[in-house]
C-alpha cells in the first residue's frame, strides 16, 4: 500500500460524494414532480409517453397496485428479452452471424438483465449480436435500474407520509427515473468515454495482421453507450467477456476512475434524496456514513491483501513489490483495482476490472462478503437504499428490545407486522445462497463445472450463488456456469433475490405509510446519531457473519491458511 494509492482512492470517493449531493437533491425534485432545469426538454416526452400508454400520472397507487405494476412490467420485459435472445439468428444487426441462444442460457440471461444482476454465463463478443446488446440487454440495463430507483422512492415515501394509503405511481416513477436521471447521465458519460478512447461503432470486428504476420480478429461494437448505462445503473453486464478489464471497455486509468465514480454515483445520491424526502437530511447522511465506513474498510483489506501478494508466487521467484498481478491489468494499478473490486460488490454492480477468481484468498473473501451483506453498501441503484432501510428497521428493533420500548424509525412505530415482513425479506438471500450452494456442492454434475480444486472450488460455487441472489453479477469466472443446472438455479436465485425480496419490502412500506407519523419524544432513539450508525454497522456485520461465516471458513479462510502452509490444489 502507498500514500499515492490511497490518494487515488480518496480522489475518486471524494468526487462521488461531491457530485452525489446535488444529484440527490435533484432526484428529490424529480420524484416530487417539481420543475427541474431539463424539464422544458423532457416534460413533453414524458407527457407523450403517458398519453400513449394511457397513464394518468396524478393517480397514485396503493403498495399492492404499485408492486403489481412493477411485476407486470418486469415479467413482460423478461418475456420479450427471452424471445429476442432465442430468435437472434433470424434478426438484423448481427454482423458476426451468431445463432439463437439456447433455452437455458436465454432464461438465465433474460432473468439476469431484468433483475439488474447482469450475471453473464456467456462471453459477449462470442455470443450476442449488436441488436441483442443494444435493443435487448441495454434496454433492460435502463429499465431494471429505473425499477430499482422507483421502488426505493416508493419506500422512501412510506416514511415521508403520515396515514397515507398510496406510495406514488410506478409508471411515473419508472419513467422519470429513466428520462430525468439515467438517460441524461448516460449520454454525458458515453460522450466522456468516447472522448477517452472507447469504441462506439456498429461494425462487428476488424481483421488485423500483427507485426509477426499472424491474423488477429479484434471484436468491436457500440461499447461506450452500453458501458455508460452499465456503470450508472449498477448493472455490470459487460460488452466483452472480460468486462471492464477489456481495454475497449476501460482503456486507461482515467476511464477506470470514471467507471468507479459512475457506478457509485446514483446509489450514493439516493441517500441524499431519502434525507430530503423524509424532511431530515441527517437521516440520509447517517445511512451514508455507515455505508462508506464499511466500503472504505473493505477497500483497505483488499488493497492490503493484493499488495501483500501471493506467497506461493513469491516463493517461486516472482518479485513481490508489485503485489498479486494474476488477473490484473497493468494500467489500473493495485489501489484502483482494489477500489473497483470492493465498489462493484458493495454496490450490486458486478462489473469487474480484475478477475476476482484470481484474487488472493482474503482479497477474494471481501467481495464475496460484501455481496452477502445484502448489497447495501451502498448497494444497487434503489435496491441498496430499500435494503439499507430494512436493516435500519432491524437495528431500531434490536435497540428497542434492549431498553424495552416500542421501536420507531422516522416517526413510524415498528410493530410485529413490520418486523415479520422485514425478516421475511432478510431470509431470502441466505436461503437462496446457502441452499443452492449446498446442493451444488453435493452434485457430481455441478462439480464438473469447477475450474479450481480444493477450497477455491467451494468459493467458486458460493460466489456464484451469492452473486446471483444478491443481483450482483460478478463471478469467480472459472466456474463454467453455462450448464442447464447452473443456468436454471442461478436464474432462480436472481428471481428470488430481486422479487421475493422486494415484495415483502413493499408490503412493509404499505404498512408503514398507513401509520401516523408520531413526533419524536424524549424516549425516541435518535437515528441520526453516531450511536445509531455504530449499531447499524454492528447489525450489518453480525447478521452477515452469523449467516455466512461457516461457509466462508470452508472457502477463502481455509484457503488463506493453506497458502501460508504452502499447499496447492
Amino acid at each position: 500500500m502507498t500514500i499515492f494509492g490511497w490518494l487515488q482512492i480518496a480522489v475518486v470517493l471524494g468526487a462521488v460524494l461531491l457530485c452525489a449531493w446535488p444529484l440527490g437533491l435533484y432526484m428529490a425534485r424529480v420524484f416530487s414532480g417539481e420543475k427541474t432545469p431539463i424539464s422544458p426538454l423532457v416534460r413533453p416526452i414524458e407527457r407523450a409517453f403517458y398519453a400513449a400508454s394511457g397513464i394518468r400520472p396524478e393517480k397514485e397507487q396503493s403498495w399492492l397496485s404499485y408492486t403489481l405494476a412493477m411485476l407486470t412490467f418486469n415479467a413482460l420485459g423478461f418475456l420479450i428479452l427471452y424471445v429476442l435472445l432465442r430468435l437472434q439468428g433470424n434478426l438484423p444487426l448481427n454482423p458476426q452471424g451468431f445463432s439463437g441462444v439456447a433455452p437455458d442460457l436465454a432464461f438465465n440471461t433474460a432473468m439476469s438483465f431484468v433483475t439488474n444482476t447482469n450475471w453473464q454465463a456467456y462471453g459477449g463478443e462470442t455470443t450476442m449480436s449488436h441488436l441483442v446488446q443494444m435493443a435487448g440487454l441495454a434496454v433492460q440495463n435502463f429499465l431494471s435500474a429505473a425499477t430499482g430507483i422507483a421502488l426505493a422512492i416508493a419506500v422512501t415515501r412510506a416514511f415521508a407520509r403520515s396515514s397515507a394509503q398510496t406510495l406514488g405511481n410506478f409508471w411515473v416513477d419508472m419513467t422519470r427515473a429513466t428520462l430525468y436521471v439515467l438517460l441524461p447521465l448516460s449520454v454525458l458519460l458515453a460522450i466522456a468515454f468516447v472522448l477517452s478512447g472507447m469504441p462506439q461503432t456498429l461494425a462487428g470486428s476488424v481483421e488485423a495482421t500483427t507485426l509477426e504476420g499472424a491474423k488477429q480478429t479484434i471484436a468491436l461494437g457500440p461499447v461506450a453507450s452500453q458501458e455508460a448505462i452499465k456503470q450508472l445503473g449498477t448493472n455490470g453486464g459487460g460488452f466483452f467477456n472480460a468486462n471492464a478489464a477489456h481495454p475497449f471497455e476501460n482503456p486507461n486509468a482515467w476511464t477506470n476512475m470514471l467507471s468507479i465514480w459512475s457506478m457509485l454515483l446514483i446509489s450514493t445520491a439516493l441517500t441524499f434524496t431519502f434525507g430530503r424526502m423524509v424532511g431530515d437530511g441527517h437521516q440520509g447522511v447517517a445511512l451514508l456514513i455507515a455505508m462508506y465506513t464499511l466500503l472504505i474498510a473493505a477497500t483497505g483489506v483488499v488493497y492490503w491483501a493484493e499488495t501483500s501478494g501471493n506467497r506461493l508466487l513469491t516463493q517461486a521467484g516472482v518479485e513481490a513489490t508489485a503485489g498479486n498481478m494474476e488477473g490484473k491489468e497493468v494500467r489500473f494499478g493495485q489501489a484502483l483495482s482494489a477500489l473497483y473490486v470492493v465498489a462493484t460488490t458493495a454496490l450490486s454492480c458486478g462489473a469487474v476490472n480484475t478477475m476476482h477468481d484470481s484474487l488472493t484468498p482474503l482479497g477474494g473473501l471481501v467481495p464475496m462478503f460484501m455481496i452477502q451483506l445484502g448489497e447495501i453498501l451502498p448497494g444497487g441503484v434503489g435496491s441498496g437504499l430499500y435494503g439499507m432501510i430494512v436493516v435500519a428497521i432491524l437495528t431500531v428493533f434490536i435497540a428497542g428490545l434492549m431498553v424495552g420500548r416500542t421501536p420507531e424509525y422516522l416517526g413510524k412505530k415498528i410493530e410485529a407486522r413490520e418486523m415479520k415482513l422485514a425478516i421475511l425479506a432478510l431470509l431470502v438471500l441466505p436461503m437462496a445462497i446457502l441452499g443452492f450452494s449446498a446442493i451444488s456442492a453435493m452434485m457430481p454434475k455441478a462439480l464438473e463445472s469447477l475450474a479450481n480444486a480444493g477450497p477455491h472450488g467451494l468459493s467458486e460455487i458460493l460466489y456464484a450463488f451469492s452473486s446471483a441472489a444478491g443481483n450482483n453479477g460478478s463471478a469467480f469466472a472459472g466456474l463454467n456456469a453455462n450448464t442447464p443446472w447452473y443456468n436454471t438455479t442461478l436464474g432462480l436465485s436472481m428471481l428470488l433475490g430481486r422479487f421475493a425480496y422486494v415484495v415483502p419490502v413493499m408490503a412493509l412500506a404499505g404498512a408503514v405509510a398507513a401509520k401516523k407519523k408520531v413526533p419524536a419524544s424524549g424516549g425516541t432513539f435518535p437515528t441520526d446519531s453516531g450511536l445509531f450508525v455504530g449499531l447499524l454497522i454492528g447489525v450489518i456485520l453480525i447478521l452477515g457473519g452469523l449467516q455466512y461465516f461457516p461457509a466462508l471458513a470452508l472457502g477463502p479462510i481455509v484457503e488463506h491458511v493453506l497458502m501460508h502452509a504452502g499447499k496447492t490444489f
Partner: protein
Amino acid sequence: MLNHLRPALVLLALFTMLTGVVYPLAMTGLAQVMQPSAANGSILMRGHVAVGSALIGQSFTSDRYFRPRPSAAGQNGYDAASSSGSNLGPISKKLIERVEGDVAALRRAGASVVPADAVTASASGLDPHISAAFAALQVTRVAAARNLPETRVRALVQALTKRPMLGLIGEPRLNVLELNLALDAGLPGGAG
C-alpha cells in the same frame, strides 16, 4: 394485473425505441464525428494494412520484439475476439507450475529479478502494456537480435514509458505494440 398490461407493453416499446435504438445510434453518430479513430477501435495502420489496435495487446514471440504478458484469451493467447483471464485461484497447482516454468525460462535468459507482470496473465488476456521493469529485462535480448547498441534500445524504452497522469493516476507502463512499431520503424535519432 390486467389493467397494468397496456402501460407495461406501450412503455416497453417506447423505451426500447428510446434507450435501445435512438440512444446507441445517436451516440454512435456523435462518436463517429467527434472521435472517429477511437470510435472505430484505435486501429493502427502501417501503409494500408491494419496491424492491430493501440489499445489491444498482441502476441510476440520473436527475439526481435519486446514480448507482452502471458495471456489466457482464446486458445493461443491474445485472441481479441475472445477476451479472458486465466481464472486460476491463488493456490492453484496449474498457476504455480505455469509461473515456475516462466520464471525458470526468464532466469535462463539471464534475469535476476522477475517482475510480477512478466509471469502473470492479465485480466482481459489483452493487456497492451508491460511494466518498465519487464521492458528493461528485455532490452539486451532485443538489442542483440537487432544488432543495435543496448543504450539506444534503452533510450527508446525510456522515451516511450508512459508516466502516471498528473503524476498520480495510473501506473508507469509501456505499450508493447507501440514500442515494437517504433523498433521496426527505426529508432529515433538515426536509421536502424
